[in-house]
């Protein structure tokens, strides 16, 4: 199939960006979206121009590095699918596809489609961990965890930190990301000791990074490649509320 791409090009963080149009010819339906871009980039390079910069690494939907807004929807709008796992069989000959970077104040564009998501790392640094040092931990089976609890914690822990939730949100809120990490740990007995501090500190850092507020529209859940549930946001609100009321 032949496609027309409208791609956001931006030299660096300071330069203004613009859309440029590229023709993608002979695209096969078995190609992934990123492989289609690879082929377009090969053509650009052969013409002696600079290829389109975009992030990707594992290309199997788990590292969270890929990050494209495709036709206005982060990761392209196929349920539970990251850009790298989106395949061209979902497009048809003659389509025009618009490709943009994540757009959020807290995720500044570095070049073309590449953004800086270090704000997420700083939120985890603020409290997204259990404070145990290496060594001296009890036998794994000394801490029984009910299967339902472990499963729920795993549902939250499945977050890949890609930032699509922020990109989809009209307020660029990071609540789904923060809620997923906080819930993963707050649900488990191992994470209980620091539950209040964790909720407070992570939310505080989230605000400091310039993410917007959550109005629970659910666009984050809709685009999440791991289908993280909005209900974790309710849990984070509860954990945060309890901690705040206790004046911790």
């Amino acid at each position, binding site marked *: 199939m032949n496609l027309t791409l409208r791609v956001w090009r931006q030299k660096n963080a300071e330069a203004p960006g613009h859309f440029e149009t590229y023709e993608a010819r002979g695209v096969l339906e078995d190609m992934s979206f990123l492989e289609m871009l690879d082929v377009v980039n090969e053509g650009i390079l052969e013409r002696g121009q600079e*290829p389109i910069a975009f992030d990707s690494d594992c290309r199997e939907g788990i590292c969270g590095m890929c990050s494209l807004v495709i036709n206005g929807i982060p990761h392209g709008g196929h349920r539970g699918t990251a850009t790298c796992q989106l395949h061209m069989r979902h497009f048809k000959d003659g389509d025009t596809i618009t490709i943009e970077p994540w757009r959020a104040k807290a995720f500044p564009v570095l070049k073309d489609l590449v953004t800086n998501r270090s704000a997420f*790392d700083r939120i985890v640094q603020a409290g997204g961990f259990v404070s145990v040092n*290496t060594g001296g931990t009890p036998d794994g089976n000394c801490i029984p965890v009910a299967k339902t609890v*472990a499963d729920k914690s795993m549902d939250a822990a499945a977050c890949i930190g890609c930032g699509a939730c922020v990109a989809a949100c009209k307020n660029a809120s990071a609540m789904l990301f923060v809620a997923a990490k906080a819930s993963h740990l707050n649900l488990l007995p191992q994470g209980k000791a620091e539950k209040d501090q964790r909720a407070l500190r992570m939310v505080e850092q989230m605000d400091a990074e310039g993410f917007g507020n959550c109005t629970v529209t659910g666009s984050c859940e809709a685009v999440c490649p791991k289908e993280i549930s909005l209900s974790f946001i309710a849990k984070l609100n509860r954990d945060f509320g309890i901690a705040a009321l206790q004046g911790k």
Partner: protein
Amino acid sequence: MPLDSKIPSGPLAAKWDKHRFDLKLVNPANKRKFDIIVVGSGLAGASAAASLAELGYKVKCFCFQDSPRRAHSIAAQGGINAAKNYQNDGDSIYRLFYDTIKGGDFRAREANVYRLAQVSGNIIDQCVAQGVPFAREYGGLLANRSFGGAQVSRTFYARGQTGQQLLLGAYQALCRQIGLGTVEMHPRTEMLDLVVIDGQAKGIVTRNLVSGEIGSHAADAVVLATGGYGNVFFLSTNAKGCNVTATWRAYKKGAFFANPCYTQIHPTCIPVSGEHQSKLTLMSESLRNDGRVWVPKRKEDCPKAASSVPEADRDYFLERKYPSFGNLAPRDISSRSAKEVCDEGRGVGPGGLGVYLDFADAIRRLGLHVVQERYGNLFDMYEKITGENAYQVPMRIYPAVHYTMGGSWVDYNLMSTLPGLFVIGEANFSDHGANRLGASALMQGLADGYFVLPYTIGNYFAGTRPAKVAASHAEFKRAEENVRQLTNKLLSIKGKRTPTSLHRELGKLLWEKCGMARNEAGLKEALKRIPELRDEFWKNVNVTGGGGELNQSLEYAGRVADFMEFAELLCIDALHRSESCGGHFREEFQTPDGEAKRDDENFAYVAAWEYQGPAKAPSLHKEPLVYEEVHMSTRSYK
């Protein structure tokens, strides 16, 4: 230089304890005086950086991704082994040790493997305490499953995302230290050279991948946790960014490279669909617990739909050839068997390069919901890539490059031949011999980072009291200049070929001549062709853009340049090893029924290669493999 593996004396089971007592310690108050650089933030790198910082060392950690959480360990699906014997099925440290040594086809270092099995249990305890959400039984205790190459259930898992969860555990421990100011994290920063002063590793030269700035970082020790070199084959299950640059540049500075020919071809990957393919996707080996591998008995049945091939006309070749292990035969053996049936013309799918992995029996036996619960995410992944529903039609799989057992040579302390340079995780060579068993990579990465390196690195500091140098030292300036020159050279060629096209050509050559099966003539041909291809690269590569900016083509071209050199060493090693063992299958050396034929008399050694300069043949050093405890036997999974 004779290789000193520094294996402690004494009985195997007591070696590590004795060694830990013998290791010199650094006083807690003095630890902050030592700077350590950790390159890589996967399981090995993140766990090491966090653990070293917890001990009080000053740590700098580097990764090329935008966040340390994205290292390729994250993609490991199936699980992590540990000799907990929670299932009461006869597991023990000794059994895990023996299975690993045997799985590695008796080409791993005995003492290292025993230590690995010893600390395996601590890893699970550590990860549980960190909040890794391992799968649980209804009673709340940890669940296990079985994995290839073992007859006990010792694999711990977190759905099909075990690597992700273990890495997030290590990443969170690392984040905690970054937050405390004990680790300085440098994401989107690539190591481009190792700086050696007076024979000791003293730091690295890096390129900031956003600004293009070339910088120097001095330290008292450098730890490489930079993963494997599977991407030398272009197509592999590795992430796109995985590369050999750090260990290769260390090799060129004097760190020997061991056993590069030991590459693992994983049996269960989604087959190649076309020329455009950028990488291959693994389907977890855990699928072989319930999936049955087969091809039609007759060639003429291959194009037919799987469902129209009657049971009697199917060849469940792993069950037929290896009745006691069946579909759970080790990876090297399963991969070769798949290749064999495809070579016979009995492969299925486009190009005949595929075999079926069929869940129909499992669905009948267990019910659809159980299969969904166990493997749902993998079936979803398969459907996304192929557009096929594997609950209804069998999956098609084919072997692909997955892991590399070879790597920088290290002694028992995980130190390379360069004092002060430590190499951990997949980047070193030490624990998997010629073939790695499933669920052992995660175990090794975390063992090295959490429980081995934190002890042994202190011994280096306390024992040798390395001299301090600053990043202003002339040697750093020289290394920076070299890196700048290399960058400028890549940008100035302005040839006709893209780095991708050259890399793909190299990969294809290696896959054909040095892949699942190798022979003398093919390897010699590859050794003739690689230098030609390298010449072509340096004359005709096209890299656009500038050096002082984010430039992905430039990053990639630098990595391809190193693959172009490394590929030659890989083939030299494969050619020199005139035997078959584990993942290294030389067609000339096989038993009448097509199994690998080892030559213990002549090849029971680690081949450690020493760089001799450009365009010069590397020299070979042999570390004999001495088995004090186990008897080297012929592997049998029949």
